C-alpha cells in the first residue's frame, strides 16, 4: 500500500469517525434528517462558489457549501416557526428545493462557463476519492480530528442537553448555544464529507453507524466509540474500493458498507438484535408453556393425547413444552397417559411461590 493510499485511508477514516460521533448525538436528539437537509442545501453554494471564484479549490467550494447549507437550516427553522408547516414536511421541502436550485445552477454554469464541464461539480453528488488532491485529504483529516476533539471535550454537556434539555436549562446552561454547537459539528462533518462521500450519501454516514452501534450497547461512551469505528471502517473501505475500481463513486460504496453493518447489527447483536430477541421470545414461551403443562396436569390429572388437549386449552408450543417437561423429569408417560411426577409438583410449587 502506497503512502498516498494510506493518507487517503486515514483521511476517510477520520471523516467517517467524525460522522459517526456527531451523528450519534443527532440520532439520539431525533434530528437525524437535519444532516440530510443540510447536505442537499449545500449544492447551490458549491455551484455559486465555483461561478464566483472560477476555481475548483476545495476551501472555496466548501465555504460556499457551508453558507447555503446553513441557509437551508435557517430556512427550515423559519418555516417551522412562522408557518403552520410541520417539521417533516418543512424538511422535505427545504431539502428538495435547495437541491433543485443547486442542480439547475450547476447545469447552467457548466454550459455558460468555458471549461465549466471540467468543474467536476457532479463529483460532489456521489463523491470521488480518485480526483482528490493530497493537500485536501490532509485538510479533511485535520478538521475531522479537531472536531472530534471538540466533541470529546463537550461530552458531558452534549450528553445532558441531548437527554434532558429542560434540566440543562434549569442549571443555567445556554442550551441554545449547545444546540448550535452540536448542529455546527454536524454541519462540519457533512460539508467536509462532501468531496469524498457526496451530497446524496453523506447524511447517511451520520445516521447508519449511530443506529447500528445502538444495537450493541447501552452506554453513550461505548456507543460513540462504536459509531466512530463503524463510520471509519465504512468510509475507509469506500475510499479504497473507489480508488481501486475505475469510475466507482465513493459515496454509494461507503453507504453500502455502513448499511451492511447496520443490517448485521440489527440481526445479530446480542439482546437487542432481532435474532436474539426472537430466540428469547421462543424461550420465554417455552418456559410459559412448560409451566402451563404442569398446571394443567396437576389440575386435570393424567392426560391421554396431551398435545392436542393442551393445545386446545391455550398452551403455546404444546408439543415442545410436553417434550421438555418429560425431558426435565417433571412429567412422565404412564400407560399412554402423561402424568405429573413428584419433581414436577415441586417445580410447579416453586414457580408459584
Amino acid at each position: 500500500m502506497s503512502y498516498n493510499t494510506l493518507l487517503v485511508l486515514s483521511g476517510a477514516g477520520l471523516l467517517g469517525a467524525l460522522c459517526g460521533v456527531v451523528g450519534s448525538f443527532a440520532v439520539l436528539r431525533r434530528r437525524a434528517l437535519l444532516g440530510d437537509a443540510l447536505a442537499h442545501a449545500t449544492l447551490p453554494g458549491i455551484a455559486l462558489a465555483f461561478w464566483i471564484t472560477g476555481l475548483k479549490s476545495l476551501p472555496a467550494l466548501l465555504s460556499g457549501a457551508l453558507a447555503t447549507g446553513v441557509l437551508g437550516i435557517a430556512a427550515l427553522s423559519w418555516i417551522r416557526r412562522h408557518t403552520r408547516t410541520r417539521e417533516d414536511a418543512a424538511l422535505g421541502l427545504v431539502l428538495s428545493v435547495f437541491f433543485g436550485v443547486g442542480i439547475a445552477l450547476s447545469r447552467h454554469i457548466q454550459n455558460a462557463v468555458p471549461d465549466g464541464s471540467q468543474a467536476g461539480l457532479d463529483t460532489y453528488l456521489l463523491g470521488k476519492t480518485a480526483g482528490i488532491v493530497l493537500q485536501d485529504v490532509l485538510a479533511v483529516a485535520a478538521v475531522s480530528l479537531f472536531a472530534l476533539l471538540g466533541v470529546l471535550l463537550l461530552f458531558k454537556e452534549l450528553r445532558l442537553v441531548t437527554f434532558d434539555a429542560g434540566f440543562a436549562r434549569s442549571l443555567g446552561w445556554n442550551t441554545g448555544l449547545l444546540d448550535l454547537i452540536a448542529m455546527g459539528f454536524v454541519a462540519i462533518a457533512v460539508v467536509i464529507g462532501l468531496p469524498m462521500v457526496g451530497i446524496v450519501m453523506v447524511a447517511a454516514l451520520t445516521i447508519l453507524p449511530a443506529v447500528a452501534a445502538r444495537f450493541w450497547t447501552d452506554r453513550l461512551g461505548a456507543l460513540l466509540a462504536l459509531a466512530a469505528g463503524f463510520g471509519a471502517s465504512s468510509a475507509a473501505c469506500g475510499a479504497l474500493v473507489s480508488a481501486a475500481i475505475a469510475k466507482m463513486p465513493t459515496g454509494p460504496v461507503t453507504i453500502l458498507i455502513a448499511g451492511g453493518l447496520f443490517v448485521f447489527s440489527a440481526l445479530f447483536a446480542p439482546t437487542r438484535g432481532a435474532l436474539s430477541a426472537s430466540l428469547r421470545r421462543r424461550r420465554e414461551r417455552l418456559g410459559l408453556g412448560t409451566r402451563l403443562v404442569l398446571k394443567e396436569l396437576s389440575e386435570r390429572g393424567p392426560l391421554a393425547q396431551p398435545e392436542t388437549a393442551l393445545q386446545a386449552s391455550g398452551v403455546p408450543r404444546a408439543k415442545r413444552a410436553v417434550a421438555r417437561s418429560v425431558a426435565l423429569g417433571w412429567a412422565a408417560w404412564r400407560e399412554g397417559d402423561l402424568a405429573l411426577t413428584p419433581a414436577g409438583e415441586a417445580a410447579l410449587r416453586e414457580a408459584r411461590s
Partner: protein
Amino acid sequence: MNPSEPSLFEIRNLTVAYDRRPVLEDVDLTIPAGKLVAIVGPNGAGKSTLIKAALGLIPRLSGAFFAFGKPFGRADARIGYVPQRESVDWDFPVSVMDVALMGTYGRVGWMRRPGKTERLAAEHALEAVGMREFARRQISQLSGGQQQRTFLARALAQDASLYFMDEPLAGVDHATERAIIDLLRGLRSRGRTAVVVHHDLQTVPEYFDEVVLLNKRIIASGPIEQAFTATALHEAYGGKLLTLGPLAPEAPSEAVREVRSER
C-alpha cells in the same frame, strides 16, 4: 409578607401564552422558605407552565422573578428542577448513575468531568432514594417508580435550596409515593423548599404545608388552613369537583380537618 418567614422565590405579574391563548394570567406568588408547597388545579390550569416559566424554560409575555431576595434572571443550580417523567426518552443510553451524576453538572463547569466528590454525592443521592443497587442499570430497564426515584436522586445530588417538581407522584406505586414524601420531609428538615405540582387533592393536607390553587390565575395560596378551603377548591375546579367527598361547600375548615385527622 411576614418578616419571620422570608420569601425565597417571588413571582410578580406573570403572564404566559401559547399561540396568543393565555395559559397564565397576572400570577403573583410568594414561596416562603423551608416549606413544602403543592400546586394544584384542574387539567390545563397551567401548573407545569407555572414552574417552567419560573425556571425560565419557556418565554413569558410579562412578569418578573425574585430569588433569594434578588432579581432572578437566568436559572442556576441553586434552584433544582424535577421534570415530568414523560419529558425524556427512557431508552437513552445512560445508566441510573449517569443520570444521578447529571445533578452535579451545574457545579462541575463546562468541559470538566465530574470527580470523586461528585460521584460520592450521586451515590449518596441514589442511596437516599433506594436506588443504589440499580446504579449500573440502564434506565430503560426501570419501572415508573424507579424512573421517578432516579430523577429525584439527580435533584438530591444537585443539592439545591429550592426545588420545582413536576408531578413527581404521578403514576408511582404506593411504596415510591411514601419514599418520595419521606424524602420531601427530609429536605424540609434541612431547610430546603419544594414546590410540587400535585394531582391528588386528598393527600394535599397530609403531605404539604402550603398550597397554591391554580386555574390560569391564582385562586388561593398560603398555608393549608387558609387556602385549601372548599370555596377556593370549588372556584378552581368548578363543577368538576365531584370526587372529593369530605369537602362539602358548607363546612370548609371542618372538612379539611377531618381529612387531616384520618392519618
